[in-house]
């Protein structure tokens, strides 16, 4: 039964054209931005590494991942598909679990594909444009970047379930990730506790206090808090 719910949710996502467009758009963003970063490093003569170029593209890729995370839950409320969904799967916890697993699959695939494509693109562009390469940073950071993007995508999913609207959820996530977080980081060191700042320690060791593991824990705590709120609203309140 559980697998059928998951299969149904994946089927819904497969037949939603905007998911395909977003997936392609996210991967292309990674490819183009990584190449552009390599070209700009070459133009300015800044020595860099392939892994570093890919990691610098992560903030751009995350915009696509946020949309991927918001869509599975958000589109149900864009119209009244949610009513049909709950008629088909009246057990709300199970419906939410299925949807969350489908979102994990889509977001994970999007993150892995875009980081992989960005890596290929950065390697090719660095070779073509003759960027001065220094000793490469640990490749495990790429896995960290994929994990970071997955966390951000799941957070977007939780926000979409909690907010129950597509565009407000998207705007809230984008505003938090690309406006509030950088502005707050410029103002106070306590911005390190924001979910994206904390999770970014998975691929960047820029923080004096949080490490990859503790940063991930902070991000998971955020995810649990918002996810619990969202799950409560989904399971206990009228859709």
């Amino acid at each position, binding site marked *: 039964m559980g697998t059928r719910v998951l299969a149904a949710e994946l089927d819904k996502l497969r037949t939603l054209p905007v998911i395909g467009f977003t997936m392609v758009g996210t991967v292309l963003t990674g490819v183009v931005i990584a190449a*552009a970063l390599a070209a700009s490093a070459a133009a300015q003569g800044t020595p860099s590494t392939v892994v570093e170029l890919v990691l610098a593209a992560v*903030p*751009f890729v995350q915009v696509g991942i946020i949309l991927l995370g918001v869509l599975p839950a958000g589109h149900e409320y864009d*119209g009244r598909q949610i009513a049909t969904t709950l008629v088909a799967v009246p057990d709300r916890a199970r419906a939410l679990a299925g949807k969350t697993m489908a979102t994990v699959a889509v977001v994970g695939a999007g993150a892995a594909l875009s980081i992989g494509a960005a890596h290929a693109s950065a390697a090719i562009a660095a070779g073509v444009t003759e960027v001065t390469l220094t000793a490469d940073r640990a490749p495990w950071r790429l896995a960290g970047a994929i994990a970071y993007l997955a966390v951000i995508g799941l957070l977007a999913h939780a926000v979409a379930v909690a907010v129950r609207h597509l565009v407000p959820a*998207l*705007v809230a996530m984008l505003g938090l990730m690309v*406006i509030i977080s950088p*502005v*707050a980081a410029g*103002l106070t060191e306590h911005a390190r506790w924001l979910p994206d700042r904390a999770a970014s320690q998975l691929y960047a060791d820029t923080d004096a206090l949080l490490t990859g593991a503790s940063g991930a824990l902070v991000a998971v705590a955020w995810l649990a808090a918002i996810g619990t709120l969202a799950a409560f609203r989904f399971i206990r309140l009228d859709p």
Partner: protein
Amino acid sequence: MRVAGPLVAELRKTLTLPAAWAGIAVVVLGSIAITVLNAVTTRSAIDAGTPERVANTSAFEAAFAAMPLGTVGAVVLGVVMISSEYAANSTDAGGGRQITATLTAMPRRVSLLAAKATVLVVLVIAVAAITLPITAGIATAVIGGAGTETVTPAQALMRGLGGALYWTLTGLIATAVTLLTRSGLIAPIVLIANSSVVSVSLLLTNLTPLAHWLPDLAGRRLFTGVDTVDGGLAAGPGALVMAGWTVLLLAVAAVVFRRRDA
């Protein structure tokens, strides 16, 4: 009546959208929150005798740091004003779209778009007129005479007006893009992400100087002081270029809107 009727109708439709109020709240409350945080940090740095810990101790700069949030609010207003017209109703209620009712009431499509654009301009300027004095007042109250004000009142006024102009033009671009795509997804992604540090336009300037002519970068000197990047257009010509983009996009949207099926 001919002009006032559509304006009042559009204003009323916009102000009864919860999302529009969410956008306004983000600007007003978000800016106040950031200003308080910034001003308190600055004040404590001054009191501790380490003013070099913050970039500067000007009360106006502390308030002005919240300006990027206004862009988000303007984009939200510009988007929901159009996307709410195209959102399909519940199938239990017939699954209709508000745009059909709107066009029945106001068949002149270009006038309708003009009314919507006017309402957006009025709303964004009203939000700016509320937000900027409040945040500047809070920052002045918290920092007081302890800091060194580096911005003269005349400069502060010019930068406030410039920032409000940037918000307005970005909101109008959001309206045009949403009308062209009939979807509320593209405009927020492109405009919000691009107005932040995650800016594709900014990255493009490393590759070609032509990128300085893109609307968001052309207008960024209107903020003078916030994320200044070398090169590019000065405030005056930049504002003209950004306004040119806005007019162009609105004109394209108007032609498309007039010619296609709703």
